[in-house]
């Protein structure tokens, strides 16, 4: 399907929208006859997720009118993220089906019988993905909405969102002795299956994207600081007790 293909292509392009607490790129859409919607959005539970962790993605619409059924396709980079089977859900009553193939999750939902159509601000779907490997992913959204009169309206490129999966830290095999000199930096572990993104220097790097060499001195300094702080507190408490007797 050409629409799905376009989503996969777009997802392969690293786009990084730096919004804190969830990345949203909302596309205002022109008003149309029923069914209609004002704005679509994609929100993620974490803009940055570690390999092996799960991230939740929420597709929402505001200002929906006479929404009886919809068919949404969410494109992603299958080398970086994997859809968690059976995770797609919606609180809108009716019946749904989700299928994931080659970097696209297709979620179809319909109301049942003569049930009233959905309207207003709605979460169309929540889906979970597991981070497989380091990389930066752009989620892309295409939709088709169907009204109770069986008239449909399609929306291409309705919203995007970015998820960054940093390269995991290299494993540390032997803790260094406190008195020993600083351990030479361990060789960086290459991020699996992502060869178009620099896991250290790329835009998706955050404070946890550090190497084993960077981490080594901090436990020693921390232990010394803790000992000093504990001794100081103990001294102040004893002084206070003595003054109150």
């Amino acid at each position, binding site marked *: 399907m050409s629409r799905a293909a376009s989503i996969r292509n777009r997802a392969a392009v690293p786009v990084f929208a730096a919004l804190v607490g969830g990345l949203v790129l909302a596309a205002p859409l022109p008003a149309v006859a029923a069914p209609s919607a004002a704005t679509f959005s994609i929100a993620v539970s974490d803009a940055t997720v570690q390999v092996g962790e799960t991230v939740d993605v929420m597709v929402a619409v505001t200002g929906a009118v006479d929404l009886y*059924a919809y068919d949404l396709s969410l494109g992603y980079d299958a080398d970086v993220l994997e859809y968690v089977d059976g995770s797609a859900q919606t*609180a809108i009553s009716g*019946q749904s089906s989700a299928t994931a193939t080659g970097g696209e999750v297709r979620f179809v939902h319909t109301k*049942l019988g003569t049930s009233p159509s959905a309207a207003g601000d709605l979460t169309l779907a929540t889906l979970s993905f597991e981070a497989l490997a380091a990389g930066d992913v752009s989620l892309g959204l295409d939709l088709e909405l*169907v009204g109770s009169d069986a008239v*449909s309206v399609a929306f291409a490129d309705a919203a995007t969102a970015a998820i960054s999966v940093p390269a995991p830290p290299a494993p540390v095999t032997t803790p260094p002795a406190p008195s020993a000199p600083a351990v030479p930096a361990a060789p960086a572990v290459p991020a699996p299956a992502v060869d178009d993104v620099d896991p250290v220097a790329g835009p998706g790097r955050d404070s946890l994207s550090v190497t084993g060499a960077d981490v080594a001195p901090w436990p020693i300094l921390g232990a010394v600081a803790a000992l000093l702080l504990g001794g100081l507190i103990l001294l102040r408490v004893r002084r206070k007790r003595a003054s109150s007797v």
Partner: protein
Amino acid sequence: MSNTPRTAVNAARESRTRFLNAPRGSPLSQPPRHRFRTFVLLPGAVLAVAATSLGGFSVATAAPSDTTGLNFLAPFYSEADLTGDDAVDENDIDLLMTALGTSTTDATWSTVETADFDANGTITVTDVASLSQRTLYDDGPFSPVEATTIDVQKAMNAGVVTAVSLTQMYLDRIAAYDDQGETLNSIISVNENALQIAAELDAERAAGGPRSMLHGIPVLAKDNYNTVDMPTTAGCTCLRNNQTDADSQIVEQLRADGAVILAKANLDEFAFNLSTDSSLGGVTNSAYVRTQNAGGSSGGTGASIAANLGIIGLGTDTGGSIRVPSSFNQLVGVRPTVGLASRDGIIPLALSQDTGGPMTRTVSDAAIALDSIAGYDPEDAITAESNGNIPTSFTSSLDDSSLEGVRIGYVPSIVGTNAAVNRLFSEALADLQAQGATVVEMVIPELPIVQGYSSGSTNEFKHDLNEYFAKFVTDPDVPYSSLAEIIAAEDYQAPARTNTMKAREAVTEEQYQAWIVRHNAEIANGERILSGAMDSHNVSAMVYPTTTGQYSTGANNRLSPYSGMPAVTVPMGLSSTAIDGSAIDGAPSNIEFLGRSYAESTLIGLAFDYEQATLHRTSPALFPALAG
């Protein structure tokens, strides 16, 4: 009211057991009924499911309950079935969702082709939506006002209402409107066990799905149908304590299909007359023009169903008693072929003409009820003729294209002279043509012969009523065993009916025997004349106004009973003082479709198409939804 402590469901089961255990030849001996379908009780009514299901990819946030037992074959709801169970349900939707993107070039196209509603050669979400709209499901708000059996099953499948809550809604409406407020005065007795019966049906549905489309549906029966949980009075004070041991056969079949017999409705005493007035129930007026009578003799059923005190109504028709009150109350009424449904356990008026049939707000409800009540009953010999003449389901005929290409006949001379009725009937003929029918003017030279027959109610009443007493009146609290004893005690609507009652009592057995032979021949001749006219004009049905004036009956209602042929009456609009100069503004009138014997399916299809094209019925403004 002398209700027994047992529930009607249990009583019906006990009743069946008694029938089966009774010695052959005894009045209670009935072999198991040969029903045209069987109930399939499947496990697992699934309500409001929020779970992942098959294949790891399909989820259902609110799946319909098991609808296998509903047996609802209206084309809209069944023609797009993909899974071979004659219904569209969650399995069909699941299948079509899986097939999204399938097109005409795919090998599996034939398995989903019927669901390509937009005919674009590809299965899309639009097709999914169109298929889904054919499921019996609605999770929106529910109102008992103008609710149909279909509405109820949708709401029950969605968990919006239960049989108990539905029963309570109609009990509340009876309490609010029948004896107080607008004081419809349409109900003689209310079933005190109704809520318990409904609760049992809810439990059964939860455990194994619905029995049929009638599962949990409140029924208002004319008070001449025997019921095990309410007395059967015919509106006469003489039978106020007539608690029978068994249901009438029609009621038994309705209960077996899951209906809740909610109340018994007023009637013209002993079902003779056409205005609804009885010594026990008093007068019942129309739900629309409150100064006018409700029509009769099933006027209690007519007014109460029109005012939304129940969903399915039962009437009886000897010479117009289903169709006249249907016409006066904007209802659909079916007078079946004599022989389609058993009269056993109905207080008779004239068995040569008596029939029982549904009175409902929609053609669909009438078809659903007819499915339940039709069938052979050894206790009513004429029903043997129904064998082979009953379709799998009358609901299969609920097709809104039924009028297309059909020829419909009418006889101008029986339309009458009333300006409003003439206008409405002319509009109806135009509507039939607009739906694709060819309207044919019929000439029936022998029609006056049929119109000139007399009703059997005079010569048969005493004979048939006394037989009913002998077979069914076993309650010691009924101090009479014959018409003569009732007349002697003056325990009836006297003096208004005294002359009539005495005249009927005076008919001797010899006179009855001579009459019944002659009248059966007349009815056969009537069928020959009318069906012959239909044949010669090559029409599927003939139409005429059921009643030819505003709250005035006319004589067209005699054609069906004097031929034994079935008739279906449907609302065709209201009189208008401004347009017609009618003395009564807003008086309802119905159009009646008369068909060949056992052609109920045809008539239901024609009536459904006309009903759906015109939607003439209005809800009575004086009986709105209750507050809260």
